[in-house]
């Protein structure tokens, strides 16, 4: 097997790479990402959704609050393109605000938990032995405590417990452990590779090896876990809101909207489908973007694709 892998240095392959020789690493990664069509389309869609969520409210007459000018239970018409809710909200206004809050929560959770979790997991995996055992027991504690119970206990009893940032931090606190476990597993096999020993032999310190070698090589699983976490965070936030522990009315999130509309799927479909579809879109696009990132960061994978 070893030497049999055809090297792309051969003549025919070199045409595309000759120009590649002048680019920096970052440029190459960007170029690879741009070539990944599903990821590019998803990125565009996600940007549109983000624009809708964050800029939309400045251009739309109604916000997410109840207004006495709004008739309740109206199907979509020209004044309210997505209709109105039973309490007298403009669904479009609610949708904008909901998407905004959901995006904020989901992305914050994903970023914080992934950053912390992968550092934790990589450190445990790299040192191994007793350090690993201790660090992973901490992870176990976070994995076995039912997050809903803990979140309920925390968010119900803290000041400002229902703002989006608190919710995000609480959810992150209970999701980094999964990432840590995944990353540790990958690092356990990576650290036996010779290039890690090579770095040690040239005098690299432990943080250097973890950040420059282990984490980049674990990028694939990390990105997959991070994108999954986005979906999980959205669902968890929706669950929390539903249980009255998450974002509270009059503020709104997509999960909460779906929860509110769940009894009216057939009678008032306009209150159910828009947040539902948007939620699925956000999860899907982030997954595709994750795929694209993973491929762009992996020097080998794209070579095969093309």
């Amino acid at each position: 097997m070893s030497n049999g892998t055809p090297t792309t240095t051969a003549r025919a392959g070199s045409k595309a790479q000759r120009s590649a020789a002048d680019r920096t690493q970052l440029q190459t990664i960007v170029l690879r990402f741009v070539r990944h069509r599903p990821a590019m389309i998803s990125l565009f869609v996600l940007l549109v959704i983000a624009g809708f969520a964050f800029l939309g409210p400045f251009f739309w007459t109604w916000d997410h609050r109840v207004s006495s000018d709004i008739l309740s239970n109206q199907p979509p018409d020209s004044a309210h393109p997505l209709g109105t809710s039973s309490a007298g909200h403009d669904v479009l206004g609610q949708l904008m605000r909901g998407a905004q809050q959901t995006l904020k929560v989901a992305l914050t959770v994903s970023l914080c938990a992934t950053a912390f979790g992968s550092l934790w997991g990589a450190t445990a995996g790299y040192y191994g032995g007793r350090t690993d055992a201790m660090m992973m027991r901490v992870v176990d504690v976070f994995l076995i405590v039912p997050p809903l119970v803990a979140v309920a206990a925390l968010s119900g009893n803290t000041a400002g417990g229902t703002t989006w940032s608190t919710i995000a931090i609480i959810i992150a606190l209970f999701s980094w452990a999964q990432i840590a476990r995944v990353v540790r597993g990958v690092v356990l096999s990576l650290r036996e590779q010779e290039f890690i020993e090579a770095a040690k032999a040239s005098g690299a310190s432990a943080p250097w090896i973890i950040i420059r070698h282990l984490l980049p090589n674990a990028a694939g699983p990390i990105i997959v876990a991070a994108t999954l976490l986005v979906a999980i965070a959205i669902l968890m936030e929706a669950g929390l809101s539903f249980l009255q522990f998450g974002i509270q009315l009059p503020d709104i999130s997509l999960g909460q909207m779906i929860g509110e509309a769940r009894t009216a799927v057939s009678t008032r479909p306009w209150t159910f489908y828009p947040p539902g579809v948007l939620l699925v879109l956000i999860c899907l696009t982030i997954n595709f973007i994750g795929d694209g990132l993973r491929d762009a960061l992996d020097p080998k994978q794209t070579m095969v694709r093309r």
Partner: protein
Amino acid sequence: MTTENMSNTETDVAAHGDAILEVDALDVTFPSDDGSLPAVREVSYALRPGEALGIVGESGSGKSVTSMAIMGLLPKNAQVEGSVRLMGEEILGLPDKAISQVRGKKVAMIFQDPLTSLNPVYTIGFQISEAVLAHNDVGKKKAWERSRELLEVVGIPSPDQRLRQYPHELSGGMRQRVVIAIAMANDPDVIIADEPTTALDVTVQAQVLEALQSARRETGAALVLITHDLGVVAGQVERVAVMYGGRIVESGPVEEVFYRPRMPYALGLLGSLPRLDEDRAERLSPIRGAPPSLMAMPQGCAFAPRCPMARDLCHTEEPGLLRTLDNGDRVPPQPGDAIAHVAACHFSDELSEGIRPENLFRDADADAGTGNAGPVAAPSGADAPAAEAAGSERAERGPVGEPEVLLKAEDLVKNFPIRSKGLLKRKVGDVQAVSGVSLELRERETLALVGESGCGKSTTARLLLNLVRLTSGGVSYMGKPLQGLSDKQMRPLRRDLQIVFQDPFASLDPRMTVADIIAEPMLIHRTRNGGAKKRVKELLELVGLNPEHGSRYPHEFSGGQRQRIGVARALSLNPKVLVLDEPVSALDVSIQAGVINLLEDLQEELGLSYLFVSHDLSVVKHIADRVAVMYLGKIVETATTDQLFEAPAHPYTQALISAIPLPDPVKERTRERIVVTGDVPSPADPPSGCRFRTRCPKFARDLSEPEREKCVQEVPGLLERGSGHRDACHYSEVVELL
């Protein structure tokens, strides 16, 4: 192309009568996203009953795919064309049920890796019986009986006990012999052995080859021996076919091909091989460039881009396999002489009798330096300028005073604890990887550490660099002790002590560009701020790579090129000592020579000291000034290279030297052998007294009972024989082997 087909049809006619296996114009193509990959092209050969045919080639030359195609073991997406006839019957494209009748019964196959070709959950006896029962319904008892016989044939001691054991209880060599026993279970007519000894140590390899020969004698089967090792071919087969780029480029009787090659590739392969039986001052002559990629097969002759004789014709027209007559005419092989010496080269008549590979390929080196510096041709091109210099200087470099001792190890001991399972993890024993090794590495010297796998040579190398913590003993670098230094205290010393790893695929971070990889040590040590880029280019040039390729990733390079990157990284801090841990053992022969030459040149140029860890005595003989032979964690003999190879004193060294197959058919078959039996004992429980006594031929044959007692009781010390030659044997005696 027409001549090609003609020659094929004619060989068929010739072979029909007596051939047992005929392969005719076999083509194997793998469809892929990048177009189809022609793995095997127009391979034809005929095998007569009882004959042994060797197929040699580098990795990717299609030698394994050919045999898999014959056995019908290729994945479904492979497109196989041509014909394979077994005793006149077509077996290519047979339905699954029909081919099952052929496999095992008529054609048996032995795979490379004995660790994975046996099922770990069944006993040895069950697996051999299963093979017997698959084709002969003789009943379980008889099958078991037969299994016992088979184990005896392949030379496994106490077969009754072995039959009840599971594969993991047997050593690699033992397992490979079990695989051979399975292969001969049904008296096949043809045995195909695909690199049967590549994964094994040399002394074990000798035992397995012996088992293979007795299997042949027993069953009268014809043998197809696929290997990359020219030495193995020279001793084991009568006829050899050389494959390159998916085609057979030369074939004929083994003496003909080895002594009078008609194709530059075969000549080049022989020239790039370090020889145990030749003077070490001789510089290797590597073939420039790398084997062709299947995705971009060159037009015309596949070897043309690397061939020093290539002309325009070679790049346009693919040569057919032709026979050269005594009068210099080249004709397609006649019916009736299927075994004739044929070669696929337009200019094979120019390879006159007695041409030396170094003449042909060294000229080529010089040309490459000036001409095309394409990515593939670059590496060996850079070897050229220093070539002459190195050859002459080596002779002149005499002992001018006593050179300074750089790295000194005293009584190194490394035990890896074996812990009990369960919660407490109590220590229940020690794997004694290194027990009392003392070494001295002097300035500008190459010290080789030789031994079979598991003898502790790599651990010793890592102990010297303080990459593994010592159990006891001491290492000092220029008088400064290294043991007990923290990572931080060690860092400044790391500049002087660098390492190159065995596996060029695992030792480079796949996520970093080559420039980043080479610059990393400089970043860590904060040297050359800003100048790193320039330095990377210098280094790439120094190791014979195109300096413009810095922004590429490791996977875009071939094995040899990657190993050069590893060397460049090690050199980036201007070290004084380079530890080379099996630096060429993962490389193909034609590539290996280029890396060895590079290492020699760098030593001359930069005044480096090498600690060269290797299992390959031929390479060691070529590159080292002094050699230390290790066995089970101890040094058993140390001497200058000349002393060691001319007058080995320790029985283990003697056995090691005589187990290495020489790429010379006549010498290989006639030389005297010192055979070692059995396998290396476990380092967790080494034998008392002399650790080699359990396998020692002297102990077994020549010694009297009281003398043996001494070997069992007393650990032999490493004693001086004179002029620095030391060995650890109570009854050592010099033997001349080469």
